[in-house]
């Protein structure tokens, strides 16, 4: 019992055998070629200006990944097995258009839509009850896929053209990521116009330590967006152009399986402050939004 309980008595200051913490790590090698299943939940809290939490929207994405080395195709294939919305306390409802939709993941460096995600899939979304999904909520459906790949691929896989997870070798190390100060397009189909962009601040990755997720040893890597900002131009009607500017600060942890290199869990907390100008309104519309996100790897373990 004494041996298995870490933490020495007062005054003893006994050091435990923590040699694993002092090892050199390689977090950037290829992932094992097994299909993976993920569940992602994103909670979006809207604040009133007096701090009251007005509403919470919940987006739930179930995503399956079949690696290219399994399919023999040129890229990892992702299938959305389920997507549900729960808006402001209303019952959870599914989006039939997303169910069993498959796409091939494309790295951010490639031309074409961001991460290979087809915009047309998010046009005129309706829920399982036949209700149209409002344009701003449909954007968050799209953004769920973007978030997923940002955390599970951009941050959790080696970066090209700059520093990335491949440079984190020892616990405590911190780097400025290749994504720092980049300005990515955030346009989407006919609802969010081209020229809409998200500008990252000084994005950092830090090797915080080791964790245990679902009984699997993981590297715990923190990311931090730094002082980020964005601008969006939305045309809800042909002659109406709504402009939104704002700031974002997002940060969280990624737990990378030390044996398979797949992400076992990721968390994210984001604060967004925005101002929207609508030509037909005299006053600008201000909003403060908090987003909390958890991604869990729910792939059955061998033998399950």
């Amino acid at each position, binding site marked *: 019992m004494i041996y*298995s*309980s*870490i*933490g*020495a*008595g*007062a*005054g*003893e*200051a*006994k*050091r435990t*055998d*923590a040699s*694993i*913490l002092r*090892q*050199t*790590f*390689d977090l950037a*090698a*290829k*992932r*094992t*070629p097994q299909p993976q299943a993920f569940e992602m939940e994103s909670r979006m809290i809207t*604040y*009133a*200006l*007096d*701090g*009251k*939490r007005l509403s919470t929207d919940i987006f739930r994405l179930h995503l399956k990944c079949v690696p290219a080395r399994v399919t023999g195709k040129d890229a990892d294939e992702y299938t959305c097995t389920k997507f549900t919305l729960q808006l402001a306390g209303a019952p959870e409802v599914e989006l039939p258009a997303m169910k069993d939709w498959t796409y091939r993941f494309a790295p951010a460096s490639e031309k074409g839509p961001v991460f290979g995600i087809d915009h047309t899939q998010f046009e005129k979304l309706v829920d399982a009850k036949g209700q149209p999904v409002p344009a701003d909520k449909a954007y968050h459906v799209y953004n769920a896929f973007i978030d997923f790949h940002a955390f599970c691929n951009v941050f959790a896989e080696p970066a090209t053209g700059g520093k990335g997870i491949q440079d984190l070798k020892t*616990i*405590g190390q911190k780097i400025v990521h290749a994504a720092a100060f980049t300005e990515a397009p955030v346009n989407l189909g006919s609802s969010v116009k081209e020229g809409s962009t998200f500008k990252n601040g000084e994005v950092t990755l830090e090797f*915080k*330590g*080791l*964790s*245990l997720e679902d009984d699997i*040893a993981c590297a*715990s890597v923190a990311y931090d967006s730094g002082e980020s*900002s964005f601008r969006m131009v939305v045309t809800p009607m042909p002659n109406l152009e709504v402009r939104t*500017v*704002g*700031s*974002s*600060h997002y940060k969280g*942890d990624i737990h990378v399986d*030390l*044996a*398979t*290199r797949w992400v076992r869990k990721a968390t994210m*907390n984001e*604060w*967004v*402050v*925005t*101002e929207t100008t609508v030509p037909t309104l005299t006053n600008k519309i201000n909003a*403060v939004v*908090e987003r909390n996100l958890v991604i869990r790897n729910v792939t059955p373990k061998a033998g399950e």
Partner: protein
Amino acid sequence: MRAHRILPVVILALTGSTICLAAGQSKRPDDSILRQTFDLAGPRSVQVQVFDMETRVITYAPDGKRINTDVLKLKLKCTPARVTGKEADEYTCLKFTLQFGNNPEVAVPAVAHWTYLFKNTASGLDEKGQMFGIDHAKFEKLVDANGQAIPPDKAYYVYNAFIDFHGFCNVFAEPTQGGKGIQDLKSMGQKIVHAAAFTEPPVNLGSNIEKGSTFKNGEVTLELKGLGLVDGAACALVGFDSGQSSFQMVVKPMPNMEVRAVGASHYKGDLYLDLATRWVRKVTMDELVVAESTVPALPNKMSAVLERDTVIRNVTAKAGE
């Protein structure tokens, strides 16, 4: 011959010390330390500790622009009761500096070398109704080293730096009375609702902030997230999260003027707890504050969005203690 014998040993040493294997192998490293039972609640070792704390307060404009950053720096020494023979740990503020916006950093002489006994009661309040035994009088009519008066809202930040320090390094990082706390985190991944959850401590301060001002915690949680290394010391990595918190404050900037502020807070961060000494080695904290103030003389309410980022570092070794 000698070179041939040494080379494989070097290769073995290199490959052996790099954790993570080639794709497809999926071999598990020796991670038994992660599966141990932990005791994070025993008494701390009997050594004097020195801490540096830095808090950055970022003010957002309504359009999201970051319009101002204030930086507060606190250097604090703790002499344990078992060293002094007193009834409580003794804290000495070695230095406190402020930097408002782009102005130069300036010291606050009134709190330099100020000593107090930390009182960790179940409610957090001492016999005078003051949090943690921190004397409110110390923060009345503060002036900086240039002789400039520190505005009441900024003076509150000075006071709050001490409250934050003890909130993280004592309330969260030491065992609790009357509810769950760090003593209940025994294995990796465990998460508990902390005794501080849903409590509503007072946040009044001297003549500036009236009694009845309170901060209401949400569902405060602690989670044993992992193991880390800070300055070479193996640490338990414990996450804390305030849940959906809120506050109300009544400020009297002038005798006949009462300003009321209400708002929301969400703070979260990590504690790094030295596995050998149980002293805090590092703390990180981020907080979002959304507030609205009602000033009787103004027709419109005033809204504010703030972000606070805090880092506490144990600098005992550097301080030569």
